[in-house]
């Protein structure tokens, strides 16, 4: 039988209070109090044992109360209990079973859930709305009665044969829809193959091909032959690689492994990877963000013979959190919910892994309402001798370690290659898993020890496509023989193709030399990591998968990996041209008048500082453990009160060495949409400027590019092509390479009612690199009063398109109206970056902060926040150079590649920056005001304290 133990709080019920607060603030009245209790259900034990577990494991009498087999919350008007759906892994259960075992009690199974007792006046409507807040149908359920058992029984499903050879086009399309996501030509290529070998495929074979050929795994668009505006162009990936490999000084491994690897010092290498998890995050943001983090951490450990993950970054694009519910397309979740849940996911996974999350950003635009962008990055370090991608040899053993296989996580690769529709949330919910960080953590611990004992030949993760992709890819040169019956399962009842396809962030496949298997098993045992020996690399050049004696999949590796027909795709310039849009610009700018009074100026500044893209993200950053591992030498926030934001992370990966690793990123989806070429240049420039502002040496940097684009129709492919051109030109200008990247080309929403949304194009450029000495870096906070503030670089002051200023003033009007976005002088940029680097090395730059969204005045404001001081700004110098310049344009212009720098005095400025454009804008002051003057007139003067409040308010409101 099942024993039920309920545990509640004696004093403060924080969960209940938080829910009550949220309920009241969303206008649901009538509830007076909410009490919660954990509900544990334990199977296969005696009453006495249940009592022991209650008293010694599940309840702490000091602060808690408990009950056995009876309700704990009594007299509530209504109780809602939420738990995971059967088959969705509840990470807590393994711990409960382990601890019970340590207490000498053998549990057969267990589950845990949470009960919420509502007190006061509650009607159906209130219950309904609260229930919606509490659970996500995709992975959770409402529990109304005690289950009979948690043991999931089932017979292994049969392998079925699909009559592919006789299908017509409609039938092929039908088979592909919602499941395989392949086009007709690809379906026909598969059909041809099976006609040639004179048999029909098994379900397992079809699924294996579909996942290998999915956009997610196959990157068909990036490999396609292109016809752009009538001209032939080389495939995108080829262009990127060609340019990158011209700058290979620091490259250890690029484009071939799970992350890009560059040289570090003393025989070490550092690696980096960015990955999106948009589709799962759209339907289950908590699990989606968790598995996104888990996935990208694993890309680092899955590089070479194993790397250690040392930094995590997170970058989100969402609709504004106050989006009216009416504007939400069917099947989509509200952005406020998504925001809170993705942050919770990143927090719960990253913190548990002990990986510092110390760089990130959030961007808001309502066109992300149909699908958010959730981009997680991870960086690592590994001995150089273990940094090259491993190649399995004939006779090597295939082992799988880590999390067991379940039904959750099936079809992730194919599903994420499809567009989002209102059906996605119901049809594809299987593809979402709940991450189990501790499973991943111990698996990593075991891998790193095995690596240092030289036991690993090659390693691959079980992300998109599960065993099928991991083993299929590792064995593509040698061929493999796999026995699925050896795989460890969460529960019985899976069909062979499900075992083969199911993904998990917490499972890795390794090639282990036969002679080292027993040593490897010992390491796994020490770390409580389960291992399955699945087969071997056999020299057959075939993928042969068995379940017992049954053949479930036999494919030629050559067909599987090289049979996918190269796509030929056409790209066409969108119908509205930039020059047409430019006409609109001038008329719009006519309507914009300069702020007239101090009050108007301050009002506008407040709007800019409280804009979602600008406002302080400190309440979020503090939820992440950003200094674990003890490596962080420039933290996300610093300054007198610890609230001044910095541009990049600087860590010391080897605690006993002064060597530094710098990590930063740049992204601006709004600019990409207006102008994919200059928008992309902006993103790359912003990334490298963030990197340089803290003391990074751009010559020793590597780039990572992530493209999140709408489904590549002709127009979206056109903009993608422009973006790739921009990245190539950027590499050429700075002579540094992109060494890793990823594309996700499914940012399109199609509703039943005809709603069609192209989610803004996102190019995120991440940058990481090395510096010899962490002590030669700077933070953004102003260091003292009376020092000189200057702008370094060449702001493109005419062009304000896509700026936060316009968004704030014009209230989010169509972006197309403002197509003149700031251009970056790519010739000047390397000189500027190098001068900043040298100034910091020489100790002459006291503080530095790059100009980005919100413009120069925002940058200076943030530096005042950190310094807890003021600044006196004069526009005279710049206005003497550019006569017709508008003062608002000057203050809010967002040209990337420009910096606000604090130096001792004008003499120092002259000495350091003599060879590049710069001009002095003012001085820091002890008095905590920001004053902006033009000639003798004060445009405005405001207390930093007031501005700080406005800037901190938006995220504080959501996160505390």
């Amino acid at each position, binding site marked *: 039988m099942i024993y039920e133990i309920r545990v509640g709080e004696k004093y403060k019920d924080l969960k209940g209070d938080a829910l009550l607060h949220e309920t009241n603030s969303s206008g649901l009245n009538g509830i007076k109090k909410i009490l919660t209790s954990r509900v544990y259900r334990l199977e296969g034990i005696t009453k006495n044992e249940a009592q022991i577990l209650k008293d*010694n494991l599940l309840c702490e009498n000091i602060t808690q109360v408990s009950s056995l087999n009876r309700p704990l919350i009594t007299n509530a008007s209504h109780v809602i209990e939420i738990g995971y759906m059967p088959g969705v892994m509840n990470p807590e259960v393994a711990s409960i079973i382990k601890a019970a075992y340590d207490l000498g009690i053998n549990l057969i199974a267990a589950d845990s859930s949470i009960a919420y007792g509502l007190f006061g006046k509650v009607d159906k409507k209130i219950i309904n709305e609260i229930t919606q807040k509490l659970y996500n149908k995709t992975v959770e359920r409402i529990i109304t009665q005690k289950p009979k058992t948690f043991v999931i029984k089932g017979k292994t499903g049969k392998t079925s044969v699909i009559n592919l050879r006789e299908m017509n086009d409609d039938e092929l399309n039908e088979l592909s829809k919602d499941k395989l996501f392949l086009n007709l030509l690809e379906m026909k290529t598969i059909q041809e193959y099976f006609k040639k070998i004179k048999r029909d495929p098994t379900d397992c074979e079809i699924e294996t091909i579909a996942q290998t050929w999915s956009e997610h795994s196959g990157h068909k668009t990036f490999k396609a032959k292109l016809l752009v505006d009538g001209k032939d162009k080389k495939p995108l990936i080829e262009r990127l690689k060609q340019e990158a490999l011209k700058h290979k000084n620091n490259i250890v491994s690029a484009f071939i492994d799970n992350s890009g690897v560059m040289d570090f010092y003393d025989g070490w290498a550092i690696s980096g990877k960015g990955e999106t998890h948009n589709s799962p995050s759209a339907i289950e943001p908590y699990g989606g963000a968790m598995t996104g983090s888990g996935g990208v951490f694993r890309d680092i450990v899955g590089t070479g013979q194993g790397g250690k993950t040392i930094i995590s970054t997170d970058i989100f694009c969402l609709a504004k959190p106050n989006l009216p519910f009416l504007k939400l397309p069917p099947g989509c979740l509200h952005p406020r919910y998504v925001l809170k849940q993705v942050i919770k996911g990143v*927090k719960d996974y990253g913190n548990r892994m002990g990986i510092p999350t110390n760089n990130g950003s959030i961007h808001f635009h309502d066109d992300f309402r149909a699908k958010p962008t959730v981009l997680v990055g991870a960086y690592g370090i590994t001995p150089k001798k273990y940094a090259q991608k491993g190649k399995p040899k004939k006779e090597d053993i295939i082992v799988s370690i880590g999390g067991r296989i379940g039904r959750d996580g099936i079809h992730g690769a194919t599903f994420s290659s499809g567009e989002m529709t209102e059906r996605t949330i119901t049809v594809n919910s299987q593809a979402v898993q709940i991450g189990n960080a501790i499973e991943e*953590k111990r698996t990593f611990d075991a891998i790193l020890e095995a690596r240092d004992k030289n036991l690993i030949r090659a390693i691959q993760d079980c992300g998109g496509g599960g065993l099928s992709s991991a083993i299929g890819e590792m064995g593509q040169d040698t061929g493999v023989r796999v026995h699925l019956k050896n795989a460890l399962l969460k529960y019985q009842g899976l069909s062979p193709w499900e075992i083969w396809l199911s993904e998990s962030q917490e499972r890795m496949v390794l090639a282990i030399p036969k002679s080292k298997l027993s040593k490897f098993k010992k390491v796994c045992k020490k770390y*409580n990591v389960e291992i399955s020996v699945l087969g071997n690399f056999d020299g057959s050049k075939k993928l042969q998968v068995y379940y017992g004696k049954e053949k479930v999949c036999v494919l030629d590796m050559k067909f599987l990996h090289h049979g996918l027909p190269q796509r030929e795709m056409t790209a066409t310039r969108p119908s509205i041209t930039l020059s047409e849009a430019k006409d609109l610009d001038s008329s719009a700018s006519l309507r914009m008048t300069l702020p007239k009074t101090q009050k108007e100026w301050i009002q506008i500044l407040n709007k800019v500082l409280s804009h979602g893209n600008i406002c302080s993200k400190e309440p979020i950053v503090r939820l992440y453990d950003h200094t674990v591992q003890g490596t962080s030498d420039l933290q996300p926030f610093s*300054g007198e009160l610890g609230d001044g934001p910095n541009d990049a992370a600087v860590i010391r990966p080897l605690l006993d060495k002064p060597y530094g690793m710098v990590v930063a990123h740049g992204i601006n989806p709004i600019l990409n949409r207006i102008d994919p070429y200059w928008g992309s240049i902006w993103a790359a420039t912003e990334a490298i400027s963030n990197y340089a502002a803290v003391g990074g040496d751009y010559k020793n940097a590597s780039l990572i590019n992530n493209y999140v684009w709408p489904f590549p129709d002709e127009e979206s492919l056109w903009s993608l092509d422009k973006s790739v051109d921009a990245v190539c030109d950027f590499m050429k200008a700075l002579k540094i390479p992109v060494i890793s990247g990823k594309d996700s080309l499914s940012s399109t929403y199609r509703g039943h009612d005809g709603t069609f949304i192209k989610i803004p194009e996102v190019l995120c450029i991440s940058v990481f690199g090395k510096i010899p000495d962490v002590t030669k870096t700077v933070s953004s906070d102003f260091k003292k009063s009376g020092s000189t503030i200057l702008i370094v670089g060449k702001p493109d002051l005419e062009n304000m398109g896509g700026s936060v200023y316009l968004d704030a003033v014009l209230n989010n009007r169509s972006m197309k109206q403002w197509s003149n976005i700031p251009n970056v002088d790519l010739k000047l940029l390397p000189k500027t970056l190098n001068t900043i680097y040298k100034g910091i090395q020489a100790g002459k730059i006291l503080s530095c902060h790059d100009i980005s969204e919100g413009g120069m005045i925002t940058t200076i404001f943030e530096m005042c926040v950190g310094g807890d001081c003021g600044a006196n700004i004069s526009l005279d110098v710049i206005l003497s150079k550019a006569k017709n310049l508008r003062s608002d344009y000057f203050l809010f212009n967002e040209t990337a590649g420009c910096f606000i720098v604090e130096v001792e005095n004008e003499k120092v400025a002259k000495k350091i920056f003599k060879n590049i454009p710069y001009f002095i804008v003012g001085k820091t002051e002890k008095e905590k005001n920001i004053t902006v003057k033009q000639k003798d007139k004060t445009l405005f003067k405001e207390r930093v304290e007031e501005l700080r409040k406005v800037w901190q308010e938006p995220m504080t409101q959501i996160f505390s």
Partner: protein
Amino acid sequence: MKTKPKVLVLKADGTNCDEELAFAFKLAGGAPKIVHINDLRTKKEKLKEYNILAIPGGFSYGDDIVSGKILAVELTSFFSEELKKFIERKNTLTIGICNGFQVLVRTGILPFDTIGKMQATLTNNDSGHFECRWINLKIEPNSKCAFFNNETMKQFNNDYISLQVAHGEGKFFADNITINAIEKSNLVVLRYVDAEGKPTQNYPDNPNGSLNAIAGITDNSGRVLGLMPHPERFIFREQHPNWRRSQNLKPQGLPIFENMIKYIRSKKYE
């Protein structure tokens, strides 16, 4: 003494501050070794062969149920006697940081060495969420702690030290009688203080709402210390977010480890 004091840095599934903690001991002059609990269970490693037991931060076993619980159950189920003997030995020290403190409290070792019986707890922060920030701490001048007390204060020219907290369950809590007993026996070693150096209940200076602003306690022997803040994350000056603002800043976590090593060395001579 030629040989370096041996430090056992305990590791279990989900432990994640082990490497920086081992490094801190190494920097302080110790000989640390990260030992997996399974190696203790199979007797490959023996606690009694070490001078210092250090339980690092992290999320042992995911902090499932409540933080540190599963590891505490494992320790009390298999190592009660060994732990008792180790702690009673006068030439040993024990430290639990963050998750390690949670484990020490849940085994009953802190505050009163009642292994198997909990007397106090570390529960959810009043804020209801995890928090990573720098806070100020006062070292109690009269605490019983054998290696972190009046003497230690002299190393700092300040009334308080800065360390980082990074936890979601750090509110020290016990009933009145227990709290009074802890105070009376001078077991409180560290308290959260405000800008004036006074113990505070105000968020965020007191990041979790701990009773009496308690951030760290010792046991009656003074040889066991549990604390929520992370001294191992401030062993270089550059680990402080404002090292660029102050030339004289010294790492304020390192002295804890140095004092522990010093203590062991002095006992070896005795």
